[in-house]
């Protein structure tokens, strides 16, 4: 049991290292503004974790995780918005008691699907259930029809576009392009106060570590092995009596549910949600976080998310013109030279011992580096023939 939950001794030490970083090192060294930023990045890490299971292990690349991150976020935002739109604080509106953007668009009453979000338990449930149900319907329809590889990626990308356009187009009911803003309290507790920012940060870290442990248990069991086998030899698994489509659907639903939790925590820490979190660009960026960190390693995905976002924030402040070059260059380098991402380099270095690794790395020209890439990609990262 110990081995499966924490991935053996080395797994435990890595996990402990991350816990120390998140619970001690960062809160002590960063002011609340930077810490809140880290908290925001960690909410993206939830999506990256889901992608490690779905894509890294299962070989199914979804470019639509923004849809599930957004759905979870919007469910939480709807509850917070209703709580912030009590009749007293919205008395200057022509119809008090309803969210401001509805008043601007001449809505006289709360639309039907908003009413259940008045209750906190329902909303918290919806944060996980809504993305999971959407993922189940889409996944079942697609995997049963054996849609896979690049087609699946493109269709999920189209879904991300559809949802963001759908939100833009129905501004009266969804808040449109501005999104849902000015969220103040959760069950009376002011989420904008500095003290609550700290609490929300620690809650996010705790939930993240719990998710990592849970996924570690899952991946080390038969479910994980089956997903890995599906990625490498789908036919063999199918003809060993597994309903492969249902396994893919369950991985897709799991990744969606986790992304939904990430979306809700994002709303709590940043205080608003908008279609810009749902569309094509954020969805691909979240894939890149997992790719940079290492698509086969849960911890790698978290570190990848932190590194890319911190870089993005720092870079864009210091040289605003060049940071897109840096980001683009980083993505290409990771995907071509280090398909296993930073975690891959870390494992390779650990196995070969740092000195040999550095010498090997330094000695090789760019062309040889590519040679190294093909050996690296020869093992687990080999893409199934789509």
């Amino acid at each position: 049991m110990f081995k499966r939950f924490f991935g053996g001794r080395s797994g435990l030490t890595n996990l402990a290292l991350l816990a120390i970083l998140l619970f001690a090192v960062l809160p002590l060294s960063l002011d609340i503004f930077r810490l809140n930023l880290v908290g925001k990045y960690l909410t993206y890490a939830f999506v990256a974790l889901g992608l490690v299971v779905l894509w890294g292990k299962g070989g199914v690349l979804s470019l639509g995780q923004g849809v599930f991150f957004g759905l979870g976020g919007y469910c939480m935002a709807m509850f917070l918005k209703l709580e912030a739109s009590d009749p007293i604080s919205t008395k200057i509106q022509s119809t008090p008691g309803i969210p401001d953007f509805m008043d601007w668009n001449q809505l006289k009453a709360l639309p039907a699907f908003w009413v259940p979000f008045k209750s906190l338990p329902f909303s918290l449930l919806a944060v996980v259930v809504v993305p999971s149900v959407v993922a189940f319907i889409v996944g079942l329809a697609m995997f049963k029809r054996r849609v896979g590889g690049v087609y699946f990626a493109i269709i999920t990308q189209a879904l991300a576009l559809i949802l963001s356009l759908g939100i833009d187009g129905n501004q009266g009911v969804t808040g449109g392009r501005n999104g849902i803003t000015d969220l103040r309290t959760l069950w009376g507790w002011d989420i904008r106060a500095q003290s609550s920012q700290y609490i929300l940060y620690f809650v996010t870290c705790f939930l993240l570590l719990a998710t990592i442990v849970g996924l570690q248990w899952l991946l080390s069991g038969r479910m994980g092995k089956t997903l890995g086998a599906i990625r490498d030899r789908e036919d063999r698994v199918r003809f060993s009596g597994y309903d492969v489509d249902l396994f893919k659907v369950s991985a897709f639903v799991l990744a969606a549910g986790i992304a939904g939790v990430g979306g809700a925590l994002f709303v709590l820490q940043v205080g608003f949600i908008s279609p810009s979190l749902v569309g094509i660009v954020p969805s691909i960026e979240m894939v890149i976080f997992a790719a940079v960190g290492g698509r086969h390693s849960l911890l790698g995905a978290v570190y990848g998310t932190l590194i890319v976002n911190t870089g993005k924030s720092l870079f864009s402040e210091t040289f605003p013109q060049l940071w897109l070059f840096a980001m683009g260059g980083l993505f290409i380098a990771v995907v071509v030279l280090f398909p296993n991402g930073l975690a891959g380099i870390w494992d390779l270095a650990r196995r070969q011992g740092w000195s040999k690794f550095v010498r090997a790395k330094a000695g090789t020209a760019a062309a040889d580096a590519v040679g190294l890439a093909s050996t690296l990609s020869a093992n687990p990262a080999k893409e199934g023939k789509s």
Partner: protein
Amino acid sequence: MLAYSASELWSIFIMQGFAGLSLFSVLLLMALGLAIIFGQMGVVNLAHGEFMALGAYVVYLCSTLVQNHAPALQPYYFLVAIAIAFVAAALLGLLVEWSLIRYLYRRPLDTLLATWGLSLVLQQAFRSTFGAREVTPTLPDWLMGSFKPTESIDIPINGVFVMALTLVLTGAVWLFLYRSRAGLHMRATVQNRAMSGAIGINTGLVDRLAFSLGCGIAGVAGAAFTTIGSTGPDSGSRYIVDTFLVVVFGGTASLLGTIASAFGIAQGQSVCEFFLQGTMGKVAVLLGIVVILMIRPQGLFASKVRS
């Protein structure tokens, strides 16, 4: 609805049909290059939009050069500019294939991510050289305005131009693919790389030429779009989802599929936009495509092959 004479309704119907046709030629022109790169070669090039933007910027460069140095050439520069756009985009395609794509042939999903990184780099390169503002080349006057067959019908000339260009290009691509030795080599390499290599085809070179040809066509598409839209550093990202859907929806392996799917999507979109509201029209079309793809994942024209 105000009272309309039959002829007025008829002219609106013609113009709406024309709007559908011109959207069809826009979609097809965009998808043509990708039909080769993604359809035939299976390379997922998310930077396809940026090659279009490059073509548009080349036309803008030519128009400013002509304005400053040789205003007399104003009416003729446009066609030359399109040819230059093709060459520029093809050369960039050559460079990109050599430096990046050829390492990723066996890894389609990784190509997708790498070319997304490439699109970011190209976007920033455009922003640094041409600035953040949208630019528009001054078009020759024979391209402007509309041509009026009857009193109430206005056929935009630039629409006709884009359609003619699409016709010519599609024909050229069809001839190249199905009637030329180079095209034969390319299809052979795509279907069975090992055997093609075994019979002496230089598969590496064929891949490079095919990829740069696809990029060149994207450059021409971008050049043609300067007649109907503006060009900015990230105008390429506007087209990318539609382009991929056209190719996937048509069934990747067949050029005929791409043509048919561009036509279907264009008519669907113009009908939806006419009756539905703008944004929701686009959502309806996208939803329709995704649902049909779920029912028939191999696309409209995929042949049933003994896999």
